[in-house]
């Protein structure tokens, strides 16, 4: 991490593949990772002579929904431009993108109680992929081109440099993913290449208003990699500056294998993209009535839900943000609560037991389970077992509890004998406890739970303490 003298400044460019059946400008199917090379291509995305692009309306809609969910301004007129550069993965020798009249601008994303400003969200097309026989382009004997991804629609979401740490950058990317999934604009799976984050990183002296020289990181394909790459890069820049050097403005790659960033001989080195309006596509007029319709159809956004989880259900900020960041968890929570489960306990179960496994019970079953434990009818340990079984089989907790004969034993008379047996069987722990090692009680409780899993922990520990006194 940067030393306290430095402030980290990060802006993010995130490319997201909108959920569309076909590519941005032709009818080709959007394939899957692992499809045979060049199996999802046609004369249009191959850039054959004489072909023309046609705009995919579903992609425009997904982009507008994203922009609206980010509170962006939508202009009346937008257009596509050509970004000219030659590379074998770019069949036409230009990428159709948006330059000076993007689909939207000036939005914001709420992140942990503050706003990250969004500069713009625009649409463009993806390029293909090069596969080199050999490890590096300049050493490869042969290079192959796979154009399955060429022409796949991409939304580019550009933030202002408002992020101040690797944690914030990762949280931003995760919040974006949640938002995109909530509104149905994209699956946004980083591992599947549906979402790619490119952080622009610089550091500056604390208190300075000027931006330092930035580097842009590429090849990042997970949230974990994003976090680590930024930490690495901040450390690298700090070392460069503190040893009297200067940061070079460049594009750097992230190597997951080596856990470091490296300078890439960037293809845009001194490149002039010669942007000009795409003459094959007339400017788009965005009908305000259509925009309003899209705005009205947006579901509740994660930030609004977060606020409600705190204000209406009384959750802690931490629980609320964890639950609201995942639409399925949030639906489960609110479903269980409306089925009669107490809110905070439900949140505890979701955060502690459900979220880590990623396997969700039905809302009704969770509600029933939480009530059993909350009423003291079964122990928390028993509850965990019931939860696992209920998730696996889909059966109701009440059936599982009955079948296993789970009940919580709170009867002091019945527990007294067990407690005495525990004390008798663990002379060392008893001695330790009496010598002042209070944590020895836990070993005794563990033995007691083994002998009587149904024991009410409160009652049992009270009995043990009496015997130890």
């Amino acid at each position: 991490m940067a030393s306290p003298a430095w402030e980290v400044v990060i802006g993010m460019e995130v490319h997201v593949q909108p959920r569309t059946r076909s590519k941005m400008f032709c009818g080709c199917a959007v394939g899957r990772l692992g499809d045979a090379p060049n199996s999802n291509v046609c004369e249009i995305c191959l850039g054959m002579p004489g072909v023309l692009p046609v705009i995919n309306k579903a992609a425009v809609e997904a982009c507008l929904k994203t922009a609206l969910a980010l509170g962006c301004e939508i202009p009346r007129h937008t257009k596509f431009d050509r970004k000219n550069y030659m590379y074998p993965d770019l069949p036409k020798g230009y990428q159709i993108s948006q330059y000076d009249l993007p689909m939207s601008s000036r939005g914001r994303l709420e992140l942990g109680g503050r706003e990250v400003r969004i500069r713009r969200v625009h649409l463009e097309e993806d390029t293909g992929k090069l596969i080199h026989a050999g490890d590096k382009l300049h050493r490869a004997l042969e290079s192959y081109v796979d154009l399955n991804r060429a022409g796949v629609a991409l939304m580019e979401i550009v933030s202002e440099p408002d992020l101040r740490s690797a944690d914030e950058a990762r949280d931003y990317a995760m919040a974006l993913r949640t938002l995109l999934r909530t509104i149905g604009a994209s699956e946004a799976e980083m591992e599947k290449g549906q979402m790619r984050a490119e952080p622009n990183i610089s550091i500056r002296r604390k208190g300075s208003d000027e931006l330092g020289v930035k580097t842009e990181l590429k090849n990042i394909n997970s949230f974990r990699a994003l976090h680590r790459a930024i930490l690495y890069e901040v450390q690298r820049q700090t070392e460069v500056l503190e040893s009297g050097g200067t940061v070079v403005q460049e594009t750097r790659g992230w190597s997951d294998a080596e856990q470091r960033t490296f300078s890439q001989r960037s293809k845009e080195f001194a490149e002039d993209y010669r942007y000009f309006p795409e003459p094959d596509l007339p400017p788009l007029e965005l009908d305000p009535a259509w925009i309003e319709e899209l705005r009205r159809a947006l579901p509740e956004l994660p930030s609004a839900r977060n606020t409600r989880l705190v204000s209406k259900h009384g959750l802690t900020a931490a629980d609320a943000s964890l639950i609201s960041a995942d639409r399925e968890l949030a639906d489960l929570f609110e479903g269980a609560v409306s089925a009669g489960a107490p809110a905070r306990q439900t949140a505890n179960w979701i955060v502690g037991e459900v979220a880590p496994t990623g396997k969700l019970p039905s809302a009704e079953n969770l509600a029933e389970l939480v009530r059993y434990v909350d009423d003291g009818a079964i122990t928390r340990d028993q509850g965990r077992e019931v939860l696992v079984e209920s998730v696996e089989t889909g059966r109701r907790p009440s059936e599982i509890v009955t079948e296993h004969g789970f009940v919580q034993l709170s009867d002091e008379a019945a527990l007294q004998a067990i407690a005495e047996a525990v004390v008798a069987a663990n002379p060392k722990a008893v001695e330790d406890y009496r010598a002042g090692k209070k944590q020895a009680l836990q070993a005794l409780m563990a033995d007691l739970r083994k002998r009587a899993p149904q024991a009410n922990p409160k009652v049992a520990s009270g009995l043990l303490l009496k015997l130890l006194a």
Partner: protein
Amino acid sequence: MRRLVGSTIGELGKLLRAREVSTREILDAHLGRIEEVDGRVKAFLRLTPELAAEQADRADRALRSGEAGPLTGIPVAVKDVLCVRGVETTAGSQILRGFKPPYTGTAMTRLFDAGVVMLGVTNCDEFAMGSSTENSSYFPTHNPWALERVPGGSSGGSAAAVAAGEAVISLGTDTGGSIRQPAALCGVVGMKPTYGRVSRYGLIAFASSLDQIGPFARSVDDAALTLAAMAGHDPLDATSSDRAGNEVLSNYGGEVKGMRLGVPREYYDVQGIEPGVKAAVDRALQVLRDAGAEIVDVTLPHTDYGLAAYYIIAPAECSSNLARFDGVRYGMSEEDAANVTDAYSKTRRRGFGTEVRRRIMLGTYALSSGYYDAYYLKAQKVRTLIKGDFDQAFKHCDAIVSATSPTVAFPIGSRTQDPLSMYLCDVLTLGGNLAGLPGISVPCGSSEGLPVGLQILAPQWGENVALRVARAYETASGLKAEVAAVG
């Protein structure tokens, strides 16, 4: 045989429907004519006899079953920039030598569906860049009326094929005059439609915002019939118009009585116009006046800037459009290269001719950072002014009439060393492209024994106006597109 060669669509259609002749006989007559004269004219780059035979048989079946339309069985020649599946299409360039498109463009599909018979692929300036067909990387085409002279360009092969009687109709593309100018120089009818009237899908792009596909024919009616078969919205071309109105291509009438025809003084006295051309235009104006039209003076004040704007916009678009010819997926590929940049340079240096390279460099420069505003943006502003000129002029007249080309056909080789003199060939036609207007060139007599063309420009979507004036002139003058003997 001779009665079939040199006929119009209407004449052949009558014979076909009366069963006096079969489609195969018409095809054979034209293949015979090609055999007879094309060694001298060199209009065709390659013939497609198998496709033609198949289409002729299909046309004969359609005629027998009564499903024939007006174009059924009509032999057509196709410029080397229009993609037809499986037919080598090279844009007159070495870089595409051997390239067979995997698909057929929309205009061609529609013509095939209308029953035409494709004879072959015609010569043109490389990537349609030129005004004489001398920029073809294969060979120059010769003007059928004077073999030592150019046929005009860039669609010179298509114009010459109709003029020499090798085809009944043919297809060209017009970016700055590439249909109308060769039509004028070869003494045939050539029409550029309103931008957006015909789908460009399958047209190997030169300058996307200017290119349009259009017909060459022996009569105004034939041109209109051919255009009507290709016209109309295409979901594969976002710049093709979905507005209705293709009926203007069949119901245009033939009377100019009461029409006001504007003569722009900037066109009438254009620099370098030959006296013989001016005299032919004067005679044509008199014919139109006698037929009841009112001839009025109009002005297109920004004409002088049109050429400069055109030679910024067209090269800028071409520099981007031609980037795809990189030797990676199709066409020529230089394999002896140190790295990818070297492969690009070598492929493109060897594959593109001088004029194409010149325009790519001009366009790349005009779009460069720091020059964009001074060149491309300024040129687009001029384009807007030129459109405004035409809007103003059309408030005072129904159509605009002028010479199509300031000169008659010039000798082969006489302008190749001076690109600017070649660029001036388009000075009367490129305004129509910048403004997206429909225009037609019809034969209007001769000067020094060589054909002169009369250009009629109409407001956007006003093909019917241009066609009406053209047809009225054709009737009143009695001038027909004759078949050159090819001496």
